[in-house]
């Protein structure tokens, strides 16, 4: 399984990378939506999963979701927002734009794993 962590905080990328790596993912990183799109397009790789922050410089996570949903080859990528944006309306917006799941920061390791289980990316029962 291939995952990409898109977050402008290096600390957050490190935490999420470690978590996905523990679950057996190979992990790519990008510091914003534009960087992620460039990386995926230049390497031609399509991750199974993208963890996407919302507020980032250059290109926000919401813009990334909107753009990436227009690219036919990337349609099978599962998009999960991992962000501190936590208003009801923001979550609705992200889902409407094509995000499959939404995790609100702060999260626990089990919170991320439970959501990945919902998406069928890890087996049920991995979290405590």
């Amino acid at each position, binding site marked *: 399984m291939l995952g990409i962590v898109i977050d402008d905080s290096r600390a957050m990328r490190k935490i999420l990378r470690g978590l996905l790596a523990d679950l057996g993912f190979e992990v790519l990183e990008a510091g914003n939506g534009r960087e992620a799109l460039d990386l995926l397009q230049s390497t031609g790789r399509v991750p199974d999963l993208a963890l996407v922050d919302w507020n980032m410089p250059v290109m926000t996570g919401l813009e990334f979701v909107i753009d990436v949903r227009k690219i036919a080859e990337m349609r099978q990528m599962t998009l999960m927002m991992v962000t501190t944006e936590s208003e*009801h309306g923001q*979550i609705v917006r992200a889902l409407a734009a094509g995000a499959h799941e939404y995790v609100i920061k*702060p999260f*626990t390791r089990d919170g991320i794993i*439970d959501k990945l*289980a919902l998406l069928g990316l890890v087996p049920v*029962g991995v979290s405590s």
Partner: protein
Amino acid sequence: MEMTPALFGFVADLVYREAGMVLRPGKEYLVESRLKPVAKATGHDTVGSLANALRTATAALRTQVVEALTINETSWFRDREPFSALTDTILPDVLAASTRPVRIWSAACSSGQEPYSIAITLEKALPAGRGYQIMGSDLSEEMLRRSRAGRFNQLEVNRGLPATDLVTYFQRAGAEWEAIPRIRQNLSFQRINLCATLPPMPKFDVVFLRNVLIYFEPETKRAVLDRVRQVLNPGGWLLLGAAESTVGIDSVFERVPVGRTAIYRAPARDRQMVKEVTQC
């Protein structure tokens, strides 16, 4: 009294035997912080003295200690399979059997994730116009207060509640999320001790009794299952935790395999009824 390695070992042993949870050395802080309220409530000055008293304690106190040490943030739709069994197997049967509102009891509902998960499942699965009632029960007044409020914090809603369900069935309430009134009106909560005679209540179509029996001795398990059967409609359904079964404890429930798990069913008519029918 100090919490010695020997006392820690005793507590760890107890938790492993009763709940299958492994407490490795290094988790002393967890034992201290979780058991401090139990020690206080049971008149022990220190956690060490509570741990020492456990050597000769009643089953009730041991259960209390095990519970305090095993309580975790509960996941929504925990284990998933019981909820697919509810939608795929149980509801079609219950809906065909009567036109009354579907009645479900979530026993030992803790902070409420289970009864609210059941409500969300029914909201999606029931045909329009079909009502439902869910009763949640717990021994702890604090858990009942939290369940009644129907409020969950950010960390709790992250635990496996699908985002589409979050925005459909919850609204923001300050820093928390609150179940919408349409759901809450179908839920009620009551303090019930499963180890005592149950209060009078209308019968249920389904009882969720998950991860409760593991805490009880065999005779108590039998008595609890017997009481639960009395409040189930004929042919009503029982769901247990993944590591629990009625097999070897209660021969009246029928085991029905579903997917990788099993659910249990009360006899279609109780014996009294069958007798009367044949006599007529």
